[in-house]
């Protein structure tokens, strides 16, 4: 079903030459006039320019910058990434669209972009809030010629490319929480990466890397429990950013980083990753099925694994597990 908001935009778009009265909108949408007013405020915040004339009505005079397949590709300085772009205004999840595309077509380098995700997915299907036009929501299809056991390195590589993009564009200093969350010194997260792979024993069929980056949200866009943990580029810099430029910049940086990795291996990625590493040298708590232990985060191994050093100096590699980075549960 079409949302009230979308119906409202449609009505306004049909009347760009004349004003449409609040009364009429209220009747057509079956909501109160104060609800209409709230919607208008929200639209303005999302980049729509609305002219309100008292006793006459509303008129839309400007639409937000719109992402389309064409506008993304126009000015995109990549060699192979994003040569095919699939753009959806609304989708459940760009990951799902990318999986279908990968199964039906070859699609190495295909990028799926959405303005809005209904069911953005994080780790273990945890929801990711991805409101229309407020962030970069995309999934990339890759067919790397790598043995499957090396593929987890792609998650660290993606985090490095994203951190580079954020720091180059905004001048902020992002950090990477192992393996691939992006946050700032205030410990609030602004981006998440979800990587899914279909592979046989010794051959990767395809990899889909999903990236969600909060760009123009304000704190009030999120429920309270998320406000404590989340941030956006706008909140960090007090200015709004062009989603389209960020997408283009990210794709470009990712392609360079990926090509370098394919040529030279993980060494360079590791160096860059550690320069962004959150809490290196500090105590963290690790939860496994059997136990809970405290250890020092000693950096990452040559293959990207988390290195932890316990009190007796013993160093261990960790590939997976629940980690308490903020010592909240302790």
């Amino acid at each position, binding site marked *: 079903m079409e949302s009230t908001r979308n119906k409202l935009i449609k009505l306004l778009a049909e009347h760009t030459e004349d004003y449409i009265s609040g009364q009429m909108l209220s009747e057509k949408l079956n909501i109160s006039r104060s609800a209409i007013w709230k919607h208008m405020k929200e639209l303005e915040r999302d980049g729509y320019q609305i002219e309100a004339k008292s006793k006459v009505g509303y008129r839309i005079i400007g639409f937000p910058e719109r992402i389309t397949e064409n506008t993304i590709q126009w000015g995109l300085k990549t060699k192979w990434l994003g040569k095919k772009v699939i753009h959806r205004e609304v989708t459940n999840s760009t990951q799902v669209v990318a999986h279908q595309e990968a199964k039906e077509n070859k699609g190495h380098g295909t990028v799926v972009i959405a303005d809005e995700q209904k069911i953005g997915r994080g780790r273990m299907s945890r929801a990711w809030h991805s409101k229309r036009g407020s962030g970069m929501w995309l999934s990339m299809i890759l067919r790397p010629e790598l043995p*499957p056991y090396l*593929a*987890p390195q792609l998650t660290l590589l993606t985090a490095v490319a994203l951190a580079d993009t954020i720091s180059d564009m905004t001048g902020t200093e992002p950090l990477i929480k192992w393996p691939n969350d992006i946050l700032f010194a205030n410990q609030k997260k602004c981006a998440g990466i979800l990587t899914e792979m279909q592979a046989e024993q010794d051959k990767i069929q395809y990899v889909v890397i999903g990236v969600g980056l909060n760009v123009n949200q304000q704190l009030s866009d999120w429920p309270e429990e998320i406000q404590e943990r989340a941030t956006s580029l706008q909140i960090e810099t007090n200015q709004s950013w062009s989603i389209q430029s960020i997408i283009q910049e990210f794709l470009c940086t990712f392609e360079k980083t990926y090509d370098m990795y394919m040529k030279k291996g993980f060494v360079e990625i590791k160096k860059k990753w550690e320069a962004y590493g959150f809490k290196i040298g500090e105590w963290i708590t690790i939860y496994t*099925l059997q136990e809970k232990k405290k250890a020092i985060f000693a950096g990452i191994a040559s293959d990207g694994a988390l290195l932890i050093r316990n009190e007796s100096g013993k160093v261990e590699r960790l590939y997976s597990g629940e980690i308490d980075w903020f010592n909240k549960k302790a």
Partner: protein
Amino acid sequence: MLNVQEIQEIIKLIDQSSIEEFTYETNGTTVSLKKSSQKNPVSVQDNQIQPTTKVENVQQSDVKANIKNEPVENEVTSEQSQAVAYDHEIVSPMVGTFYTAPSPEKDAFVSKGSKVDESTVVCIVEAMKLFNEIEAEVSGEIVEILVENGELVEYGQPLFRVNTK
């Protein structure tokens, strides 16, 4: 590199403990110990270039070979495996955490008795936030699930037993 005495010492200590598996790594040398029901196969390998995961695979197949070659010593194991007829094992292509379902509130991909074909997804193995959907790669019936949900698995570790007949 550990000398023979040190390795013997470690074996003794582990033998007396409840530790099932032990890996020690230094300067490109890996020592892996794993308890089967009655013995501790030991393998020491020099590996300068290859990643550990690969070596562990070699070691694991050594362990398996040991068990098969010495049925008397491992009576318990072979009796158990005789109880269910299988002719194929789905093994993990990487180190990571084994998940039976796409998310905690969802049903498992497969259970004992499930019929699978080549492209049926049987589980997810996650490492460094990469979620690898493992396909059966054969048609048949799942006769045994060898790993618990949430358990850590090694490269090459058997996850499922399949009867393809």
